[in-house]
């Protein structure tokens, strides 16, 4: 499994985490290629169906990331909506046979490029240990 390269889909809120990913770029930080970032305006926009679809299609990990609670959210409380939704969702994931390490809800502010890089590094390392997602989940089209 040493050459296994996990693929991670990231839903990043426009104002905090997406800005942090941009900052990581402008600061010429370096991290593995495994992440694919999808921009949403708010972490509260992320529908669990996207995450399920990503796992069904072959994602080895998914990150939903937004602004720090309590008060960084550009839309007042979208991060709380995401928190509520995904803390529940996380429990369901395990019952689907998807290990909890494969899903992360992260708060990364626009200034925390190094936190972003750390999250990617950590998750890539963990997923390499876990190996590819054994797909028990079939999404009927």
């Amino acid at each position, binding site marked *: 499994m040493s050459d296994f390269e996990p693929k991670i889909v990231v839903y990043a809120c426009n104002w905090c985490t997406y800005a942090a990913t941009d900052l990581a770029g402008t600061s010429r930080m370096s991290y593995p*290629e495994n992440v694919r970032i999808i921009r949403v305006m708010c972490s509260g926009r992320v529908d669990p169906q996207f995450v399920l679809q990503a796992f069904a299609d072959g994602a080895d990990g998914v990150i939903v990331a937004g602004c720090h609670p309590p008060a960084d959210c550009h839309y007042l409380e979208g991060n709380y909506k995401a928190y509520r939704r995904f803390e529940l969702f996380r429990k369901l994931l395990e019952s689907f046979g998807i290990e909890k390490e494969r899903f992360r809800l992260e708060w990364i502010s626009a200034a925390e490029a190094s936190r972003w890089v750390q999250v990617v590094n950590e998750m890539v390392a963990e997923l390499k240990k876990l190996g590819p997602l054994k797909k028990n989940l079939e999404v009927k089209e």
Partner: protein
Amino acid sequence: MTEPRIGVYVCHCGFNIAGTVDVKKVAEYAKTLPNVVVARDYVFMCSEPGQDLIKQDIKEHNLNRVVVASCSPSLHEVTFRTAVAEAGLNKYLMEMANIREHCSWVHHDKEKATEKAKEIVRMAVAKARYLDPLEELEVKAEQSALVLGGGVAGLRAALELANYGLQVYLVEKSPTIGGKAALIGYVDPKTKGAEIVSKMFELIKECPRIHIFTNSELIQLSGFAGNYTAKIRVNPRYVTEKCTLCGECEEVCPIEISNEYNFGLNKRKAIFLPFNNAYPPYYAIDHRVCVKCGECEKVCRFGAINLKQEPKIVELKVGALVIATGYDPYRPFKGEYGYGLHESIITLFQLARMLDPESPTKGELIIGGKIPKSIAFIQCVGSRNTTPGAKEYCSRMCCTTAINNAIKIKEKYPDTNVYIIYKDIMTYGSDESLYEEAGKKLVQFVKFEDKIPRVLITPEGLFIEVFEYTIQENIRIPVDAIVLSIGMLPPRDIEELIAVTRVSCGGEGFVREAHLKLAPVEAPTKGIFLAGCITGPKNILESIRMGSAAAAKAMSLLSKGKITIEPMIAQVNEEKCSGCAICVGVCPYSAISIKNVNGDRVAYVEKALCMGCGTCNAACPSGAMQHLGFKDVQLLAQTRAVFGGEVNV
């Protein structure tokens, strides 16, 4: 839907992208993607020739979608949207693939980076296939503004807004405008706060466009930027404009309470004039303590008192709101540095007020009945975690205010010893000269670090025991009076403000700006602006400037007479909507309501209120609510494209 015809433009960004990503290969790959009609690479897509390339292709190849693979949308989304619009394409039919910040700048392996860039382009193309043309909406903007709070920040904002030509409604909770600046004596060695405020009063009196509501509060705010409806409750003053300020009523009034306009230095009656220069210049009755005995009404020779006045509700249409409701001074707990246990332990606000010639002591320094021979200021009371009740932040104005008043004391009473017991002196900017001047006038500075000073109240008098940091020794200073340099707190009624205006608070309890650097002075809700200490501690100058800034921002919103509404907001498909109202509950802006359409309950989005977060879309169980620009199908297409899949529509 017409068949998408997509053009893909891969930018080299000089070597910024091309140095790590094989842009030619990416462009070649893009040509193989479904619906891609043309794909090119170019050295700088954002340059004029680069943009012309896109414009030409739109016309020549009849493109109806454009994907630009270059930098972050935060940098050039506007550039490329404008470019496609110039070629006649709806500007929302352009999507960006971020292959610089997300790829070439963070990766080094050329092969892997190129593969990743291809996928990022594939994801953008997949989303672009489902982009919709969107139209910006315009609503009329009321040429009026509501200013909450009549302190220096609010007054400045009101004056600026009126100068720009707006009708301004200034709503102040207390019976006079002027705020705390009118009371706190000297704000620098030469200027009295009351003078600044009086000059503003003069301008306000002359301005017909400023309408002042004192004793009033905002009780309801509805509508949206450009079209707010504000409900104001005008509480009765019980004294009319017939008042001549003769003061006879005050003499007969039987109720006496601590005078907050002198920070508790003396008492006042239930009928009172807040301060000599108060505006509007009439007495007022404090309804919270008045027992309506009618003595004042009997004695008034001008018929100026009417105890039968009732509260009035006034409804105002305003385009924008400026919140400038200020702060409260920190309230030391009993025993905090001896506060409340000895008559010679007072607060900085009381001292500053005392040194004002209008104060009960007529500007004389009289503490505990005598002129102190030695007086000590203790800094950071209530700030910087010094005591259990203290806040974490620095209150910004206390160092300068203490030093300023220490200089005043030294000028007037050269023989009085003045100590400033401090943690750090923060006389930033030009205030540093005051620190130097205080040193020259022999004000003595005593530094403490982690161990806070102790106040000892003994039969021999007051002492301060402090571990002096520079000499590393415990010293004991005998003093006649102690001044606690208290900081600032969020105003007590901030909860009501939040409930009515839906602004939100930061960790320190003050109202927070939409973004400190990118959207300063703005509240997250469009059309609401913030000024002065409501966003955190500030000195008078900073508050005044913020008042000006808030007014300028409100003006830039309202000046065109209409407001453009971003189209990337929520939209309801009424056919699909079951009226379950889950979206109503999750909307942070109260932008969604349930309306009746031909007997069916369906969600309705007030477009001008929606800020486009998309939370309702994620919560909608039937897919009826869609976040335009980030619709389910668009985000799913993007997700599936990571793995080369497509959505089935």
